[in-house]
């Protein structure tokens, strides 16, 4: 990154990254542990939910909320992230900078110790996680897994990716599945968590108006749990193999059909053609300047939204549109026409320039967000690439029409996924 940047090893496979950005009034702290998608995927998703409930020092939500409230209402967010084939256990907090506290008292260092304390000293009773918390969070995760159908747009995108990467680690839902969840016990999960603590690489990212001196208290007492051999879960990147396109239809009681098409591109985050691939996706469906927006929405009035998006770790692309169910064939036809135009290199100067500028605007804007700044660093770590935002901007600026046409050749249609209503009559059928 371009900002002031500091990296320190805190322990075996544990690193702290500090990005000093004086413009922010708050400090964002993120702690991640890296795992891969495997038989413990659902367990990985459950872990942060249990860890957030309390530890040996702060035993319940009330104690935690009091601690956070006394530190100017610092937040606590936990989740799992999906970065290609990697699953990341995430605990984060945002707190006001020491420079804005009423008496100038230090809170950032305490928040860092709090986050690592949740990870380091979980509430273990009789060899397992505290039963009460385990049961509640297991049930909540079960509901969360089922609730994925509630957001129809995101659900359709996820399902399309899963179909595109069927049988691969990436094909798994980031929160796991109900079946795996049922097999988890407080004792079994605690046992597994000891392995995670011993071998998972861990990084802490701090972004905000922080000097290294502000967090000396934390640095003097870094996490000190027992580590074994650190196991890096490989790289997040891997490309997807192409096979003949398949069509998947799912029925629900919906008003609007969600058309989603998945593609393999052969170009991922570290590929030398990554910048042209970004430009390709932007011209096709990256906003109001794109072919999909202008043809599916503005010209044909078929949709309110229509976009193309890149899954950079897997080299996949997805196209989405919310349409009247009866317009399925018509929409597919218009989308295919746009893909054809891209392949022919039928791209205007305006489209090319607009796409490049939009991407560059996004990259610069990212630097105004603490979470995006941390996310950019995480992406670099999981993919092993070393591109700075500045280099990426330069590469995007250099992309030519020919470069875009060259990546277009590698794009192969893999899946058409259609979420449609329950009617069985001919109208609205997609075959």
């Amino acid at each position, binding site marked *: 990154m371009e900002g002031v940047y500091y990296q320190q090893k805190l322990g075996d496979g544990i690193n702290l990254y500090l990005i000093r950005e004086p413009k922010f009034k708050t400090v964002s702290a993120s702690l991640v542990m890296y795992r891969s998608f495997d038989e413990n995927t659902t367990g990985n998703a459950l872990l942060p939910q249990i860890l957030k409930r309390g530890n040996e020092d702060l035993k319940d939500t009330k104690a935690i909320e009091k601690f956070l409230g006394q530190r*100017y209402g610092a937040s606590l967010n936990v989740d799992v992230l999906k970065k290609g084939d990697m699953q990341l256990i995430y605990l984060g907090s945002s*707190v*006001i900078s020491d420079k804005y506290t009423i008496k100038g008292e230090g809170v950032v260092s305490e928040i860092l110790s709090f986050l690592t304390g949740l990870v380091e000293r979980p509430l273990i009773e009789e060899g397992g996680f505290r039963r*009460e918390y385990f049961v509640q969070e297991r049930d909540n995760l079960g509901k969360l897994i089922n609730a994925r159908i509630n957001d129809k747009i995101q659900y359709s995108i996820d399902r399309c990716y899963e179909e595109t990467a069927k049988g691969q680690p990436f094909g798994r839902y980031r929160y796991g599945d109900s079946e795996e969840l049922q097999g988890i016990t407080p004792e079994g999960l605690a046992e597994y968590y000891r392995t995670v603590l011993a071998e998972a690489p861990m990084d802490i990212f701090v972004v905000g108006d922080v000097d290294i001196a502000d967090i000396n208290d934390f640095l003097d007492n870094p996490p000190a749990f027992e580590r074994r051999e650190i196991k890096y879960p490989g790289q997040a990147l891997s490309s997807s193999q192409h096979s003949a396109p398949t069509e998947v239809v799912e029925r629900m009681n919906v008003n*609007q059909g969600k058309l989603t098409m998945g593609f393999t591109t052969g170009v991922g985050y570290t590929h030398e053609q990554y910048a042209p691939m970004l430009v390709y996706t932007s011209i096709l469906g990256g906003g109001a300047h794109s072919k999909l*927006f202008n043809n599916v929405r503005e010209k044909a009035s078929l949709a309110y939204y229509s976009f193309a998006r890149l899954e950079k770790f897997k080299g996949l692309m997805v196209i989405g549109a919310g349409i*009247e169910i009866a317009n399925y064939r018509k929409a597919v036809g218009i989308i295919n026409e746009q893909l054809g135009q891209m392949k022919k290199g039928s791209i205007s100067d305006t489209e090319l320039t*607009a796409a490049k500028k939009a991407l560059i605007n996004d990259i610069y*804007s990212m630097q105004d967000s603490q979470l995006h700044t941390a996310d950019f660093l995480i992406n670099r770590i999981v993919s092993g690439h070393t591109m700075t935002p500045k280099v990426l901007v330069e590469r995007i600026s250099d992309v030519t029409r020919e470069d875009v046409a060259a990546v277009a050749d590698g794009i192969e249609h893999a899946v058409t996924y259609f979420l449609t209503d329950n009617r069985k009559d001919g109208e609205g059928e997609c075959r």
Partner: protein
Amino acid sequence: MMAPVKEINMDRVREKLYYSKLDSGLEVFILPKKEYSKQYAIFATNFGSVDMRFSVPGEDGITEVPAGVAHFLEHKLFEEEEGNVFDRFSRLGASANAYTNFTSTAYLFSSTTNFYQCLEVLLDFVQSPHFTDENVEKEKGIISQEIRMYDDNGEWKSFFNMLQGLYHRHPVRVDIAGTVESISGIDKEVLYKCYSNFYHPDNMVLFVVGNIDINDTLELVVNNIKGNLSEREEDIKRYYPKEPDGIHAERIEQVLAVSQPIFNIGVKDSKVGFGGKELLSKDTVTSVLLEMLFGKSSALYQRLYSEGLIDDSFGFDFVAEVDYSYSMLGGESPDPDKLYSIIEKAMAEMKTEDLREEDFRLARNKLLGRYLRNFDRLEYIAANFIAYHFKGANFLDFIEVLEQTDLEAVKRRFEEHIKPWASSLSVVSPQ
């Protein structure tokens, strides 16, 4: 000619806000944040979905328009004789957007280069309507799909059904985009009529934040406000039906394709009819109160969470407009009726003595932290500044008002607002 500029110091957040009112009546606010990469501008009119009956200054009688006009107008303003406005922003590398809510319509862009040209485009297109029979018809297909998209959104439906439960007649109970039927009655005449009334500079505000120069910005604005419009002597009058204090329906249920019930509980606030600092104060006091009653440290939250009746999707908010106001809770729950009965009972049985000083301080700290956290997001500052401005209040006074809030005010508010008989339950349930 340079308009006089007023400097407003905000010591607590170490920012300076600059204000100027032009002869046309347009109010301009500039918040320089030089260290940011981004610039962000919002040009907004005090015209939202609830403004369906109004007077036009200088004309007799009341004008009535169909539901969804404000939102429809927002869509159409992006259309120009030659192409659409998005293209102009795209060429400059900026990203443009707009939103319509109950009380306002806002046009915005975010840029990292070419800020002044972008601002010129923003001012130009919002002042240059181009409605034709053909382009109005075309938009109906797009907006219909937008409405259909929301029809499948359980949270959105639950929220609007709650408003229908709370309100008998006030147009806040009508969907912002209207219905597929109501928008079919919209033509270019009604759009022009609303445009000339509500898009007069004296009914609008411009808020600019980010890496900008104050004088250059102001000069550009002065030179780009069109024609010789001067501030109208009469205000626009808006007519809302007389709304009873009581609710319209105790319970509304709808079936959708969701995994488990989604709920909203609304509590109607009958203390309405004022704006300004008094409104900001009511808003702040009520927000502290809700945090004390339903926040994570509250006994009620912990009980509901441990009984599995709420999960991390649970949230609450207070909405304070001049003419209507309500508190709401929402999330997913396996048994919203049981949840509702517990909350109703708690509201009925709770006494002001139960509101304790320690919890009050904690809640106030949380609100302070949350506010400062959001202060790092330019979009958030801009959107909220605009919203409060149209209510006659300054969003940037929040910390001051918060610090003046005491427990006694919270207790009085509790007595006044937390009434089980003023509450309503909305449920979106699975089939």
